[in-house]
């Protein structure tokens, strides 16, 4: 997985490419803990993400919780597989998905 970072004012945007799974979820966790502190809102761009497993969901949930007191977290450009995973796990009711 590769993570491309873009910071615009207080908005942090991370674009993920590849697979967000057991092996790569710690990379996202590390990127978030490094850069999320200075951001008021977080955008995760999944347009190049192939799929997500529960290890990735775990990281998304803690990032979502961390951003609750701020301007929030948004996940954009999810593919069919990722959307299906969000729906069956109820994450589509928790996360803001565009």
């Amino acid at each position: 997985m590769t993570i491309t970072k873009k910071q615009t004012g207080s908005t942090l945007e991370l674009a993920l490419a590849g697979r967000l799974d057991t092996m790569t979820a710690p990379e996202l966790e590390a990127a978030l803990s490094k850069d999320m502190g200075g951001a008021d809102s977080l955008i995760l761009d999944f347009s190049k993400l192939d799929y997500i497993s529960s290890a990735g969901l775990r990281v998304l949930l803690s990032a979502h919780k961390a951003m609750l007191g701020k301007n929030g977290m948004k996940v954009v450009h999810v593919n069919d597989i990722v959307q299906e995973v969000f729906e069956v796990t109820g994450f589509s009711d928790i996360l803001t998905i565009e």
Partner: protein
Amino acid sequence: MQEITMKAVIDNIPAVTEFIDAQLEAVDCPMKAQMQIDVAIDEIFSNIAHYAYPDGTGDATVRFEYDPKAGEATVCFRDRGVPYNSLDKSDPDVTLPAVERAVGGLGIFLVKKLMDRITYDYVDGMNVLSIIKKIA
């Protein structure tokens, strides 16, 4: 039938996934089904890596079978670790709000949702977990 035996460590998940993907590509599995199976592999192999061998590590064998008549792909995971039937676990409450959410148990639940069938058996000192997905 093709199979691969590796140490049950999470570092081997990419190799297992690559092995199964090659089998799926050989039978013209649609990309969506392949990715759903890849998610299932991540969940199951990581479970084996984390819990099967508490005193260290052991092997896990991953076998691929395709039934062209039924159009069904089967991926079977075997390990000689602690007997553990993950299908016994009750499903997590997926309607809880974020703050009350625990992500434990979500992995195998996801596998149940993405696959058509899952079977578990303990035979000859082995955990045998199979996932079956219709791909054609």
